[in-house]
């Protein structure tokens, strides 16, 4: 895109975002009741999502209508769940699985505009968790709509908890400090998302390897590393914008990244990368599955349980992305490394060596480099995705 149209479209984009924020601030700072504010925010958010992410085409209107109907139906299920004291297993599973089944059903068709549906489903399922775990906030329909259709987190998360929203979406946390912090986060995110990510993307497989020349082995790692850095700049930049825009409104949103490049092993990487999704999958798959398997096998077989649970959890994550082999290679390698790390640390602990191992600066330094290279290498497969792309990339490596 040429400079002038890019600047013009950027300014137009920023203008509409500013208009949305001004309208949302006017609602939050008004003297209206909390529930009325939430209904107004819900209406504004629905209009915002339609404007920012969808269009007024028949297809998009139908998509939005289905989303809204699903939110209302799920709210009804939450009310039933709350009526039973949030402790009825059958209703819990119906309420929890409803958005997941809906997600699978919507993903299996190709006519509707599905942007944001995954994150919407995850936020709905997570709200059921929150109701059960924290003795259930009584959720009103207006605030549930305003929370789920919040434009800043609608299309790509984070999967921020409902309670974060409930605690801060009343206007009381709008402040000059949050405004300044929010603007700074938006600026940093915009630079990462729009400029730095675009520059680094030039070194990824899609760009570096299609120049018609053969490449050395190092280029494979360089492209993998570039994709890792690109993905971080792109996704964490988006998160910065989401967190920043929300902060301007005084609304707290969960952080999604915590210096992933400083991870000293794959397990730590997943505590720092796409945190909200990792925690969601840990709560939904890893913990219940591990507990069930440990009950069956006994805690003496923890190593077996770790391996099975790790592969099952990462398989779910791979399937969420799609069925391309590159995703399964990426997540399969991470599952293996994750399980090895857990078993290794357990053995070190038994031998009373874990504390020294973790405290050793040289081991820490070397571990970080090895982890970075491992993740870069596996991201190469994530980037290439398909078998033809993977084999084609390997065929371009200089013997």
């Amino acid at each position, binding site marked *: 895109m040429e400079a002038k149209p890019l600047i013009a479209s950027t300014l137009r984009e920023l203008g509409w975002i500013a208009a949305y924020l001004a309208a949302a601030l006017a609602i939050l700072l008004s003297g209206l009741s909390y529930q009325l504010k939430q209904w107004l925010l819900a209406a504004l958010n629905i209009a915002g999502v339609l404007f920012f992410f969808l269009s007024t085409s028949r297809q998009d209107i139908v998509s939005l209508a289905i989303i809204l109907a699903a939110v209302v139906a799920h709210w009804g299920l939450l009310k039933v769940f709350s009526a039973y004291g949030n402790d009825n297993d059958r209703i819990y599973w119906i309420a929890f699985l409803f958005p997941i089944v809906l997600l699978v059903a919507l993903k299996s068709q190709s006519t509707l505009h599905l942007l944001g549906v995954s994150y919407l489903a995850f936020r709905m399922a997570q709200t059921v*968790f929150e109701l059960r*775990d924290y003795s259930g906030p009584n959720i009103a329909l207006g605030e549930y709509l305003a929370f789920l259709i919040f434009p800043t987190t609608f299309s790509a998360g984070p999967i921020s908890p409902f309670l974060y929203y409930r605690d801060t979406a009343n206007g009381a946390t709008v402040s000059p400090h949050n405004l300044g912090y929010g603007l700074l986060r938006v600026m940093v995110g915009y630079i990462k998302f729009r400029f730095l990510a675009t520059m680094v993307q030039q070194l990824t497989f899609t760009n570096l390897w299609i120049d018609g020349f053969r490449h050395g082995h190092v280029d494979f790692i360089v492209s993998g590393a570039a994709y890792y850095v690109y993905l971080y700049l792109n996704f964490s930049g988006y998160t910065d914008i989401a967190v920043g825009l929300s902060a301007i409104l005084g609304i707290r949103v969960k952080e999604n990244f915590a210096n992933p490049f400083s991870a000293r092993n794959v397990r730590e990487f997943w505590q720092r990368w796409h945190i909200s999704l990792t925690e969601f999958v840990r709560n939904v798959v890893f*913990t219940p599955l591990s507990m069930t398997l*440990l009950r069956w096998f006994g805690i003496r077989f923890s190593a077996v349980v*770790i391996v099975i649970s790790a592969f099952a959890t990462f398989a779910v994550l791979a399937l969420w992305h799609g069925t391309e082999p590159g995703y399964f290679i990426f997540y399969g390698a991470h599952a293996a490394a994750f399980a090895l790390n*857990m078993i290794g640390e357990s053995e070190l602990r038994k031998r009373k060596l*874990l504390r020294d191992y973790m405290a050793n600066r040289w081991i820490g330094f070397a571990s970080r480099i090895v982890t970075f290279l491992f993740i870069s290498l596996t991201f190469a497969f994530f980037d290439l995705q398909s078998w033809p792309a993977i084999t084609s990339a390997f065929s371009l490596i200089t013997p």
Partner: protein
Amino acid sequence: MAKPETIAKMLPVFHEVFDDDTLVIAPATSAQDVDGWDSLSHIRLMVAMESAFGVRIKASEVAKLNNVGELAELIERKLG
């Protein structure tokens, strides 16, 4: 407030799960105080407690516990 006898019955389970017979626990003991009390050890601990006390701990209850005292209170509630 957790009963001392519950904490005392929990101690051998901690020794088994963390492979450390010198480990001492108190109601305020948390994951920060015990080497290797990570997410998996936490799950192993819960399952070992289930066997020791004959109770069933839900996956949803696992993440909510902050220290030994809260775990002891949860077990006491389940025992009635």
